[in-house]
């Protein structure tokens, strides 16, 4: 034992060699490797479906590798169980929160290992104390007695990290931790992670945001198509090089060359595009989640909405799409009032919608890719009430080819596709229908670099064709790169609307957190 302690400074905290794992015909990992030294922040990057998550599931004991060797602190732990992994100090913070919303922070943290008085009753005070102590030690500030349901996304994530630390994790795996955070929240998280590292904890960060990788990590492992293609020191590389390693070719990191705004054609009527007048939405508890928002998106224009999540963007888009009722105001598409019309009528009026949550809204996961590609278009693929399978299949093959959806089998259930390819199915369908107004909500969330570039190009192409596009994204870069005008949403209102040329991350950031109030109606 003492020998091991002595040697541990040079022993990697995690060492995975020659990992192979396949699901049916799909090789998720082939000869993948990962080596993480103790006390470092290690970024694991790669496109969607590159095998990062599989590798981490094997590390966390959720899966057993078909071949290869896993070592933690020098001990061979290949094929261990989740319980063994937790006992050995591995903590995985998942992308999707796994918290009980009706319980308090403290109750969530002690779940499964509750301190009890006389072995029966939950010793709530002790739980709260323990949590408070851990919270102040790590800098992850959350009040233990608050309900999870009342927390913001950033706070909920802090609780998730506290939860694994509470269980004694010294090796932390964070899966896309910033996907739902605002820039200030991201900065807070960075501070916490650096602090944990300086305390000697080991951190593996799964991400596809290259700026984060460069800013935070010490070392980087790049995966592509199930294989580990590079292990590099962050100080010795550039974002462009990492991107090239991930995709296997040169990629343009900005959303590409800006297409010049199309000249307003003379035959465009002034009422074309999307017009929203004084829209109000009342949420649960009678709160005005959207409060008197007015704007217009012209044909050939992208209006980007920035903002910290939970400031009414989701509700606004749902109301425009017909999935949420409004309490006041009007919505017009090409001059047609659709405020209280059902979804199908809005489709006919020229509305297309890439929803923010493809798993809940955008796809029917058990349906085949082919069937998903006609969701919302069923009536065009049916003759006398019967669906024409041949045309559904022709359509699927066409879209799969055009959008490079992989694997290219239209009969696979959508569930079997990677996140990026699922999103391509949604984008292919919504771009394929005839439309004049597009609502694009988080169009590239959880999508890899290559696909992001492709989806951005699709949006720009649609804009060039004179479509009116409303873009909502948590990615400031995306909003900045694609929009003609940018609105910032704060507490249900537009804090500001400005031309993209005048906007920058700093300027928008101030409006997003409410320190600056602007001009917008």
């Amino acid at each position, binding site marked *: 034992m003492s020998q091991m302690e002595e040697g541990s400074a040079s022993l990697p905290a995690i060492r995975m060699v020659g990992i192979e794992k396949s699901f049916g015909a799909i090789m998720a990992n082939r000869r993948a490797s990962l080596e993480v030294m103790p006390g470092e922040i290690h970024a694991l990057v790669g496109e969607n479906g590159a095998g990062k998550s599989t590798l981490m599931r094997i590390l966390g004991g959720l899966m057993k590798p078909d071949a290869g060797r896993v070592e933690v602190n020098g001990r061979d732990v290949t094929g261990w169980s989740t319980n063994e992994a937790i006992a050995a100090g591995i903590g995985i913070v998942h992308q999707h929160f796994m918290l009980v919303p009706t319980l308090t922070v403290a109750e969530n943290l002690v779940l499964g290992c509750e301190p009890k008085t006389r072995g029966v009753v939950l010793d709530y005070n002790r739980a709260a104390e323990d949590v408070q102590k851990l919270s102040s030690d790590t800098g992850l500030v959350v009040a233990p007695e608050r309900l999870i349901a009342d927390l913001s996304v950033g706070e909920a994530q802090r609780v998730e990290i506290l939860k694994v630390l509470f269980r004694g994790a010294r090796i932390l795996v964070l899966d896309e931790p910033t996907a739902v955070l605002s820039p200030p929240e991201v900065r807070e998280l960075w501070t916490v992670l650096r602090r944990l590292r300086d305390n000697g904890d080991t951190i593996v960060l799964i991400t596809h945001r290259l700026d984060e990788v460069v800013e935070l990590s010490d070392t980087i492992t790049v995966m592509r198509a199930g294989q580990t293609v590079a292990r590099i020191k962050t100080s010795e590389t550039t974002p462009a090089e990492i991107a090239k390693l991930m995709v296997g070719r040169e990629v343009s990191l900005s959303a590409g060359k800006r297409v010049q705004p199309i000249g307003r054609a003379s035959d465009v009527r002034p009422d074309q595009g999307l017009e929203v007048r004084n829209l109000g939405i009342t949420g649960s508890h009678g709160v005005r989640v959207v409060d008197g928002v007015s704007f217009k998106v012209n044909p050939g224009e992208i209006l980007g909405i920035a903002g910290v999540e939970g400031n009414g963007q989701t509700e606004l888009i749902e109301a425009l799409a017909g999935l949420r009722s409004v309490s006041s105001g009007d919505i017009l598409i090409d001059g047609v009032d659709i405020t209280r019309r059902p979804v199908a009528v809005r489709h006919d009026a020229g509305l297309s919608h890439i929803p923010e949550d493809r798993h809940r809204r955008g796809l029917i996961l058990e349906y085949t890719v082919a069937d998903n590609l006609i969701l919302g278009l069923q009536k065009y693929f049916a003759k006398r009430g019967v669906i024409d399978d041949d045309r559904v299949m022709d359509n699927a093959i066409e879209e799969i080819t055009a959008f490079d959806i992989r*694997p290219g089998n239209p009969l696979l259930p959508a569930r079997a596709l990677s996140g990026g390819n699922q999103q391509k199915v949604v984008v292919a369908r919504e771009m394929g229908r005839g439309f004049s107004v597009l609502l694009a909500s988080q169009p590239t969330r959880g999508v890899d670099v*290559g696909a992001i*570039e492709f989806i951005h190009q699709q949006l720009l192409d649609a804009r060039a064709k004179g479509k009116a596009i409303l873009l909502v994204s948590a990615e400031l870069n995306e909003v900045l790169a694609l929009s003609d005008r940018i609105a910032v949403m704060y507490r249900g209102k537009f804090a500001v609307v400005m031309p993209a040329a005048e906007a920058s991350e700093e300027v928008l950031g101030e409006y997003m957190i409410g320190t600056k109030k602007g001009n917008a109606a």
Partner: protein
Amino acid sequence: MTGSPLTAEIKPTVSGAPWRERAEEALFPPFVALLVALICGDLLILSYGQSPAAVYRLLLEGTWGNAYGFGQVLYKATTLAFTGLAVSFGLRAGLFNIGSESQLAAGGFAAALTGLALPVGTPLVLALPVCMIAAGLAGGVVGSVPAYLKTKFGAHEVIVTIMLNFIVLALLNWFIAGHLHVPETLHTPEIHAGALLRLADMFPRFHGSAANLSLVVAVLAAGVVWFYLFRARDGYDLRAVGLQPDAAEYGGISVGRVWLRALTLSGVIAGIGGINYVLGYKHYYEDGFAGGAGFMGIAVALVGRNHPIGVLIAAFFFATLSQGGLAIHAFVPKQMMDVLQGVVILAVAVSVPEVRRILRGARRRSDA
């Protein structure tokens, strides 16, 4: 599209559809459940001091082994097929219709009234559709009540259908006991028209058994349900609502309208099932004829994995158990079959995810 990851190297292929895997996953779990049930049956029979082999032989002889027994199995399977189809139809839309018992009864009642109202000698080609429409309408009306209450007020269909069972069955009992019965009985007079041929009329070997042409109607109904669910646009919408209501709503499908349609049609299917007893077997409506077949339909739908073909097979299986209980009554209590039915249902519920997991694991290993 320059600079996009669009590459022509990967051609979409329709081949490689996992048909075989899907068939395996559909068929293996019930098979495993059956094995488990058989083993439990062995233990039960042994606990009565009987030989399992002898009892199972008796069971087979009493059901599939002779024309009469087989006819009875087919008769019972027919009603179960209708109620199983009805329940599974609702489940495909994500709705639990517990009301098929009363819908079945209402359908039978309406079929009997129509058969009584039609003049004597109405040709079957006319009388049968009319009686079936009446039966379907009655079941549909009963089914549309929970559907309406759900879409309009959000009332849970399970509660409403259960409550409605009591109300409808009591109403029917009141009609029969108070108004329409033949004295000294609890049934209507014999119908004038619409009586269906029994199998025994065509094949004398089936003599005495209740199996009749409703069987053909049941198989046709399964075909229609299949076509509706998997080929029609309405079926696309219905299954979408059942799988992911939020995504269906996003796709412009009116969830409320689908619910209304699904529960009503579920009632229609159960209602038509009433013809088996009324038109095919007794030629009158008798109070309480449903006798739990509606509730058994839930089990049939479950074991049949909500697929019309699966439902037909499951109906046949449960009918065999039910008829088999009578055949082995001399050796072990026929309630043993009720126990076995319970075991099968439990085993299916448990084995589906479990067997699927094992199958996938095995496939992974064989592919590797």
